[in-house]
């Protein structure tokens, strides 16, 4: 890892190559990513990502905090969409304790998670545009994300780090005027997406910049452990919401978009379609939610101090970026013996060299934005 990457490439051409340090402080390195690139002119000969600049010992913190205290820490993994992180962790502990979460709480979780998915995809697509020089769609999308954050804020007061839910369910019901707010928000979300599509999808420059850039075969993607939109862009129809349903996802009717070539354009396209599918899921979930009696329980009966029985569990869900899993091992006390997080972009980022090799510096930037590598969950 710490070897000079130049020494690992063709020795004879050493004099012609330049090592460029992209990051950790660079406008396109979202957060604190660092890529040591060896370039021949602008062509990338080798790109070695170095991670760890945002390491905060999240997993170790999990061993020193009680089960409930750890929920706010999970907010800080993928900070673009904190809610799926919270729910994934809660689901793991619930699985370990054998708790059955009430249906109403599950529906609230689905609604909130899908809102978070839309917010996450909006940021990702917007930033991809910014990194390719198209600045304007970013604002159309980010304004709608703010509106989604308004809903979060008004649910429990937090916008970014939501600390959503509790082990065993959720702490609060959806506020009364959710329906009204959602009815207002939905057309705006669709309009923002439509405008983004108009500005980008069939734009000749956009197509030239994205189609065929950092294309990846489905076999390679599976071998590297890709999940989420990046895997689906390669043409593999894998989505935990469909394949291993949780939170009543098996009761909703939605499509899983897949791409063909696994290039930047397909990743962009898959995310755009997924936003639309998420809107559909929210509609269906809210319909089911309305049918629930008003006094239905929001939380299963859980002890005040959470002490799961000794044992270990792995539970994962489909976060906006891919499979987000939590491994929890308990020794029967009120603190976890070990918590291990499987962030989706850690696996994806491993293949970075294969993804960008042979491309140009500008392609590297497009690739890193389209993968949606979030330093928070990458370094933990």
């Amino acid at each position, binding site marked *: 890892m710490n070897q000079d990457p130049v020494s690992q490439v063709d020795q004879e051409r050493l004099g012609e190559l330049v090592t460029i340090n992209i990051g950790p402080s660079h406008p396109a390195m979202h957060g604190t990513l660092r890529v040591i690139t060896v370039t021949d002119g602008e062509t990338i000969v080798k790109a070695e990502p170095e991670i760890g600049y945002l390491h905060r010992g999240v997993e170790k913190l999990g061993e020193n905090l009680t089960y409930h205290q750890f929920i706010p820490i999970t907010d800080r993994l993928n900070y673009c969409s904190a809610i799926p992180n919270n729910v994934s962790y809660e689901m793991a502990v619930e699985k370990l304790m054998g708790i059955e979460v009430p249906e109403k709480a599950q529906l609230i979780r689905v609604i909130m998670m899908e809102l978070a998915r839309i917010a996450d995809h909006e940021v990702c697509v917007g930033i991809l545009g910014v990194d390719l020089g198209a600045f304007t769609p970013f604002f159309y999308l980010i304004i709608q994300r703010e509106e989604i954050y308004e809903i979060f804020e008004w649910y429990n007061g937090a916008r970014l780090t939501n600390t959503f839910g509790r082990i065993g369910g959720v702490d609060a019901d959806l506020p009364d005027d959710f329906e009204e707010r959602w009815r207002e928000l939905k057309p705006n979300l669709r309009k923002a997406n439509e405008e983004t599509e108009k*500005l980008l999808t069939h734009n000749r420059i956009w197509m030239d910049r994205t189609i065929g850039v950092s294309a990846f075969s489905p076999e390679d993607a599976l071998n590297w452990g890709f999940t989420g939109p990046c895997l689906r862009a390669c043409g593999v129809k894998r989505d935990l919401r469909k394949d291993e349903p949780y939170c009543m996802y098996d009761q909703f009717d939605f499509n899983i978009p897949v791409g063909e070539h696994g290039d930047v354009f397909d990743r962009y396209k898959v995310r755009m379609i997924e936003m639309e599918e998420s809107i559909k899921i929210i509609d269906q979930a809210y319909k089911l939610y309305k049918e629930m009696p008003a006094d239905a329980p929001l939380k299963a009966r859980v002890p005040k101090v959470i002490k799961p029985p000794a044992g270990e569990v792995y539970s994962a869900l489909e976060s906006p970026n891919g499979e987000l899993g939590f491994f929890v091992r308990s020794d029967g006390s009120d603190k976890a013996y070990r918590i291990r997080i499987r962030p989706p972009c850690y696996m994806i980022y491993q293949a970075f060299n294969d993804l960008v090799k042979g491309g*140009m*510096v500008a392609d590297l930037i497009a690739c890193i934005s389209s993968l949606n590598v979030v330093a928070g969950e990458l370094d933990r």
Partner: protein
Amino acid sequence: MEGWVIAIIKVVFIWVWVLLIATVMTWVERRGAAMMQDRLGPNRAGPFGLFQPLADGIKLFTKEEVLPKKAHKVLWNLGPLLFALPAFSAYAVVPFGDKIILGGKEIILQVSDVNIGFLYVLAIGSLAVYGIVLGGWGSNNKFSILGGLRSTAQLISYEVPLGLALLAVVFVYGSFSLRDIALAQQGTFLGFLPNWGVFKQPLGFILYMVAIYAEANRVPFDLPEAESEIVAGYHTEYGSMELGLYLFGEYVNLVTLSTLVVVLYFGAWHIPYIDISKFLGPVSWGIVSFLILYLKVAFFLWLFVWVRWTIPRFRYDQVMGLGWKALIPLALFNLFITALFIQLSA
């Protein structure tokens, strides 16, 4: 008045005027961007934030100048100067109106009507790229060097079609003098089309428009400074007013290029079908012709802003591909057709 006094007045006037437009342009750019992006933009300094450029200027002037440790001192200082000066100098031969009669003396609204004005503009215009390359090289920063190199790659891709497109205009109007070309665009041809360059050279106009976006380093050709890829390209290491010169030079360049488009392709101070100069006195016509010209210029300046916030950026090899595979063959074709047409109609 002596001839040289008039010349000095004209120089000072056009210098201040271009500076003023460029300053307002920085405000238009930011407010225009904000308008397109559903936000407000600078609106605190003065009415509608109009004094924002002033505040920016004061800020840049009072900032400390930092010279990177291993920078080449001479090239470093030369860069911004070489970038900003040509933009102003090019205006020496660009007309800014028809003529005005003051005190019985006819004054042409142009600093100098040289008979090779065309070549001068081309030569001066391509000088600015040295500012970018030297600044990028002198900074001793890898991102800056990449920016400078991209700029040279861009230059050899757009400069040729730019020259060829302009050559066709010279064919049509038979003169290298910008004033002669502007004057020749009065009236109509074929009975209904205005005698403007854009109608006589439609393909040449498109090629020229593409090329000037590249010359001005604007989206989609802003590769030399591509802020998301190579930080800020050639001006990564610059700060203070040296950065200001780069940023401001870009806007001065925009004004020059937009004026050239209007003078060459959009009938300069002429309005189609009507000859207003007949209805106005010599003094008021001078002023009106000046205003008409800059109204047209304003449209093209706005177009620059519009395009910038609409489309993404090319990749470096795609710009070269566009230049060599599309623009140059088309420009040669345009030149051939123009020559053929002139030969046949003569």
